[in-house]
């Protein structure tokens, strides 16, 4: 797939990340086009999570740039000159975490309305109506008054997705969102993500669910030792791998 700069929503250019002497990302490039679903796969320690966390500046890159709709993201929270602020970036780039990270002192509805009300200054009534819509969409309309601790893992993750969607993000970053779930709860979360993909949401997904990645992703990246070792269609990368390390990796997940 080729992308022109017009429909590029989020891009990483020569992205590097080091923790002390350990370099985990060694100059990665990625352009996410509008409506594209990119799956990031690779062995643990390959840098997938560090990479996706750099895309919304959750980790500060050691080198290289993040571009949002063609504008460079700066290191300040607010916009400064030509660069856009980290806060501005995150308002438009949602993230869902492996461990949900719901706010335990707030109800499900409050978890979803928190961003719009506090960050976007949306009127409460409007934010709550939208939150109810989103909760219905992820199949949790009846749970709006519950506290996160009373939900199953799958339900928590669907609330977390609704919380991210409440900001009307241009891009959604999903970081191993099913890895902490019991196997029987994985399906309900994947179903929601599949619906988002079908609705045209631009997403970057770090996952170990090969079948799901092959099914939902328009493009698959295989990360290995801090570089993008393969970049292509699901057909090429997951179903007919040629790279021997990729073959070994995929074979382990086929079972």
């Amino acid at each position, binding site marked *: 797939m080729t992308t022109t700069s017009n429909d590029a929503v989020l891009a990483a250019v020569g992205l590097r990340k080091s923790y002390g002497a350990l370099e985990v990302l060694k100059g990665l490039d990625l352009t996410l086009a509008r409506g594209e679903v990119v799956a990031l796969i690779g062995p643990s320690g390959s840098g997938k999570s560090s990479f996706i966390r750099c895309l919304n500046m959750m980790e500060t890159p050691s080198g290289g740039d993040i571009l949002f709709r063609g504008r460079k993201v700066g290191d300040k929270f607010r916009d400064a000159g030509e660069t856009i602020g980290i*806060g501005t970036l*995150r308002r438009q780039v949602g*993230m869902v975490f492996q461990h949900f990270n719901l*706010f*335990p002192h707030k109800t499900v509805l409050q978890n979803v309305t928190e961003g719009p009300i*506090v960050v*976007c200054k949306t009127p409460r009534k409007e934010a709550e109506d939208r939150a109810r819509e989103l909760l219905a969409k992820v199949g949790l309309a009846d749970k709006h008054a519950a506290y996160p601790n009373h939900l199953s893992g799958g339900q928590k993750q669907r609330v977390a997705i609704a919380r991210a969607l409440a900001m009307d993000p241009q891009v959604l970053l999903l970081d191993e969102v099913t890895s902490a779930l019991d196997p029987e709860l994985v399906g309900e979360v994947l179903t929601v993500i599949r619906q988002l993909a079908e609705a045209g949401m631009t997403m970057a997904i770090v996952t170990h669910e090969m079948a799901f990645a092959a099914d939902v992703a328009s493009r698959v990246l295989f990360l290995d030792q801090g570089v993008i070792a393969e970049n292509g269609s699901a057909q090429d990368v997951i179903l007919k791998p040629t790279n021997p390390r990729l073959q070994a990796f995929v074979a382990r997940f086929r079972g």
Partner: protein
Amino acid sequence: MTNYQWDFFTVWQNYDLFLYGMWITVVYTFGSIFFGVVIGFMTCAARLSSWRSLQAIARIYQEIFRCSPLLVQLLWFYYAFPLLVGGSIDNRVAAMLTLSLYVGSFYAEIFRGGIVSIDRGQREAAAAIGMSPWQSMVRIILPQALKRMLPSFINQSIIQFKNSSLVSVISVADLAYMAAVVNGQTYRPLESYTVMAALYIALLLPLTQIADWVERRLRASD
């Protein structure tokens, strides 16, 4: 001892001194708790800031006040500090200042402990929806941290109530000081100091009960 003639009446005739002492004890306790919270909050903020020298100053203050006895601090501020700066210090000012600095150093650690105990994922989730560090602290981290701090905070405050009796050594007229005054007037140490002990217990018992109740409530809502 068997023939001892208890005489609480003579002691009780000085009830106004005990009442005044209790009032002063309450004033110094709650006054120093108030200032201690302010000091503790600022110290905690300094410890959590990214400014190294500020962290160091806060750390040094904390260690000085946590690692020396309150009695020693009171004596130093009242008798030594004025010589150092060339002047004199009112014993009431020295007492309030020392009590506040002392409890503030412990509060700072309670506040800091509560904040850093909140899972990193909470801050990340707040950041991911575009919250500023300040919004994240006020709306997400602090509400959860306060709940965790509360039992330790109440406990430290109860200890502070009892520690306030040390201000009597620099002649602040608190309950302990007044008991000594009554003893001096009546020559009835057994009665004077028994009444003092009973009054401390009467003041503190409701507080420990409240602490237990708060702790039970917090546990129930988890």
